[in-house]
């Protein structure tokens, strides 16, 4: 068992969802008349969650790179690894924007080094368990982002939370539908379009980059 499977109190509590909830509970609803910007704390909770997600995908990638002997889904690990790394990059993009927003309102972003992630105690390495871990975390993240929208005071902070939330919900439903067997991967389609499995890290554009669904072209209609 490697370091990534070590137990921690935070792991027992459910990872970044628990972290964020505690912070938000302390945040309150009323505007603070003076002092630090009230959005700093909830945004930093989200940033911590993103760093945990990055580390969670790294832990999952370790399993996908070398699935256990006898894992019935070992053959799917290679494309899943590509998707996991793409989505880890999404979380990095989220973290970058959150850190910039925190700095812009006079706060100090938490550092990635200060955030720890441990897999749940009941987790055992397998491809299926990696998918379940990611799905559980993405769902929790989406819920936390939505709750944080209600805690944030400024519309720009709410927008940032919302545009990230809609990415977490896409990650979640892809994993959920796969795990439930409602959709199945098409091997040939996956090879040619693997980058399209949640194509952008944001729903609506953040900053100057073409980083959102706004830059995804509409489908054209055809006779077929």
């Amino acid at each position, binding site marked *: 068992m490697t370091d990534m499977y070590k137990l921690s109190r935070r792991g027992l509590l459910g990872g970044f969802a628990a972290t964020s909830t505690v912070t938000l509970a302390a945040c309150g609803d009323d505007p603070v008349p003076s002092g630090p910007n009230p959005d700093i704390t909830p945004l930093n909770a989200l940033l911590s969650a993103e760093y945990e997600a990055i580390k969670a995908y790294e832990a999952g990638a370790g399993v996908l790179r070398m699935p*256990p002997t*006898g*894992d*019935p889904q070992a053959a799917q690990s290679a494309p899943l690894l590509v998707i996991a790394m793409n989505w880890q990059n999404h979380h990095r993009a989220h973290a970058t924007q959150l850190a910039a927003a925190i700095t812009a309102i006079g706060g100090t972003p938490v550092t990635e080094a200060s955030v720890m992630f441990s897999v749940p105690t*009941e987790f*055992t390495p*397998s491809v*299926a*368990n990696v998918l379940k*871990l990611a*799905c*559980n975390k993405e*769902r929790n993240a*989406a*819920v*936390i*982002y*939505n*709750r944080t*929208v*209600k805690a944030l005071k400024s*519309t*720009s902070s*709410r*927008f940032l939370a*919302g*545009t990230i*939330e*809609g*990415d977490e*919900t*896409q990650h*979640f*439903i892809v994993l*959920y*539908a796969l*795990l*439930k*067997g*409602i*959709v*199945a*991967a*098409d091997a040939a*389609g*996956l090879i*040619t*379009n693997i980058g*399209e*499995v949640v194509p952008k890290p944001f*729903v*609506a554009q953040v900053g100057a980059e073409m980083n959102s*669904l706004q830059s995804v072209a*509409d*489908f*054209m*209609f*055809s*006779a*077929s």
Partner: protein
Amino acid sequence: MSNDEVSRRDTLSTGAALLAGVGAALAVSAIGREAEAQGAGDVSVLNTLLRAEYEAQQAYDLAIGYFGAPAMDDPARSLAPAASLVATHYRSQHADHGARLARLITSLQGTPIAQSTVIFNLPTAMNFTRTTKNFLRLACNAEKGAAIAYTNALKSLSNVTAAELAAAIGGVETQHFIVLYLLLKGVATPGPAATTMITEISPRSVVAIEGETTDLASVPDFTYTALSMS
């Protein structure tokens, strides 16, 4: 069919029309800086989103009607039954969104637009013909436009409950979008549980609403299983 009549709206895709409409509403809200004006701005934005929900329901009605009797020469005819199940489920979630928006508008002292005043027309100027894939394309484009519109609405909604609802609905439109997108891109196909568990394709109609017991927070985590090494 009256819903198919040509109109000015036909010249825009559904998604583009939605974005344009919300953009106009956002512009209106940006003008008003005082609290009262902000409240009116919120109602305007919410009513634009409500209109889009009513249009989405009508669009899905048309799609469901087609999926029930696809053309004999439709190359994706075999997909129509599964597409109908998905469309019916998504339509029901848009109906829920519409009801939630209308209630919120009323609570903000606004007047929700009447569903009967909203008419959706299929595109006529973009080579739209009735095929299974074209209805899926139409839905995918519109869901993407809706997701963007809900997210951009957060820039202007001053009422925190309105912002919470917009985010909660927007996070469901994104789920609708990506499933349709992956099916159309050929990355995904209907799985073995597509007919028996179709409501799980988007298991809740909102992501998170304070006090709700049926939002995404109520979906249980997957439990981990050990590999059986027989």
